[in-house]
């Protein structure tokens, strides 16, 4: 579980996040949604400490991350995995070496143990054995995201963060990635936070949804509640694609019958 209280973040006087308070649950896929530029990436990077926040508190299972000593913070980092928007694989390393990197840096495992762990993680995200020795520039966008997920889970994280895991992918591949992240979250009981502006993802895996607009927290709820939400800004966001209006109306009819 991750809890944030009264989080504020600004860049040189420009407020980007204004007084965010919320809680993200364990074993669930928690979504942060909003238009691009609304502050999703800044919020995610603030939660993991890549941005220093102006004020507020962040708790990782009741451990106060904000007041933590750098050395303790560094230890906690090993419980986190993060999938960046472009995958952020290390281009000088192969697919397998990317996944092995955290093991090399932070474990005392033998080469055989590491190799087994790398195989396990890459198998879990359905990367074939032939692809292990390719470099990141030789694989597709969808594969990059999957390798990034494998790298993020290699140290058995308690917390997983994904920044727009679907950006640049076709709808079918997006669905596969969403389902993969959801399965992994449930399987390993991880607290997962995902940034997205993709309504398909919201309806597929949105167990807890936080909607932000221009750095303000506007709405919280689940994927079943989101279609009936009264919030104007959220409605504009959700029904930008008229398909979801139809879905809502169909469900309303079904309910009244």
């Amino acid at each position, binding site marked *: 579980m991750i809890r944030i209280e009264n989080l504020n973040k600004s860049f040189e006087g420009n407020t980007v996040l204004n007084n965010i308070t919320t809680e993200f649950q364990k074993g669930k896929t928690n979504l942060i949604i909003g238009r691009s530029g609304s502050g999703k990436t800044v919020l995610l990077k603030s939660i993991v400490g*890549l941005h220093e926040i102006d004020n507020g508190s962040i708790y990782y299972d009741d451990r106060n991350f904000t007041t933590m000593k750098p050395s303790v913070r560094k230890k906690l*980092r090993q419980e986190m995995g993060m999938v960046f928007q472009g995958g952020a694989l*290390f*281009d000088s390393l192969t697919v397998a070496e990317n996944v092995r990197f955290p093991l090399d840096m932070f474990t005392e495992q033998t080469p055989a143990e590491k190799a087994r762990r790398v195989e396990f993680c890459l198998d879990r995200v359905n990367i074939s054995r032939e692809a292990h020795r390719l470099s990141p520039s030789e694989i597709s966008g969808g594969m990059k995201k999957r390798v990034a997920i494998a790298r993020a889970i290699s140290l058995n994280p308690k917390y997983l963060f994904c920044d727009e895991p679907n950006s640049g992918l076709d709808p079918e591949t997006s669905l596969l990635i969403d389902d993969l992240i959801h399965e992994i979250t449930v399987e390993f009981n991880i607290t997962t936070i995902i940034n997205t502006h993709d309504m398909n993802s919201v309806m597929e895996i949105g167990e807890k949804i936080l909607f932000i607009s221009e750095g303000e927290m506007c709405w919280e709820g689940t994927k079943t509640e989101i279609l009936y939400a009264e919030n104007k800004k959220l409605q504009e966001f959700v029904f930008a694609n008229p398909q979801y209006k139809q879905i809502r109306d169909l469900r309303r009819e079904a309910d009244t019958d």
Partner: protein
Amino acid sequence: MKFFFSAGRYFALLARVFSRPERSRIYLQKLFLEIESLGINSVGIVAVISTFMGGIITLQVAYNMTNPFLPTYLIGLGNRDSLILEFSSTVMALIMAGKIGSNITSEIGSMRVTEQIDSLEIMGVNSASYLILPKIAAVVLMFPFLYILSVFFGLIGGLIVGPSLGAVSATDYINGIQYAFTPYYVTFSLIKSLFFGFLVASVPAYFGYFVEGGALEVGTASTRAVVNTNILILVFDLILTQLLF
């Protein structure tokens, strides 16, 4: 104002670079890779440029010695001291800033804009130390070798060009390059080359590490890194010459 901000950020970065490495074995592996990519791969260009420059300096000295009473060994001596004192240390460092420096900025800069540096940080790796320390160590180690190599090829260049174009006889040239040799000149330049090596690795690394934006900004940063490194090399040349000579 901008200068003080940059200088402060540069030294803060260096402090992180030189904090204790987490895994010395991994750093050592990276060091060898960097020695190869930054040092060994520069041997060719150093050899070619130095050979030409040695030849050209020899010709220039010979053609400008219009007074027939000046001894011809001065030609070899002129080439030797130009190489030892300034060309192989300072000019070579300026050239290396263009080759190695722009490479360092674009490598680290593209890791910044594709979030690979964030990726290291989130894992708990000290990205500054992991990425920059092996580069600084490799370049500082390699620069004295490249200096010696440059002097050697410059002398060879003079020996090839001078006699073959009839500017000086081989015997006179060889006598010249041995005449009144001052070992301290070499010591002085080796000390300079250590400083220059540090600048050529650390300044471009700084420019790459703090890039904001995308591929375009990485390109701009490379150019600015090379210009700034060159200016700093010349400033340090002035200071060190004043202090050590």
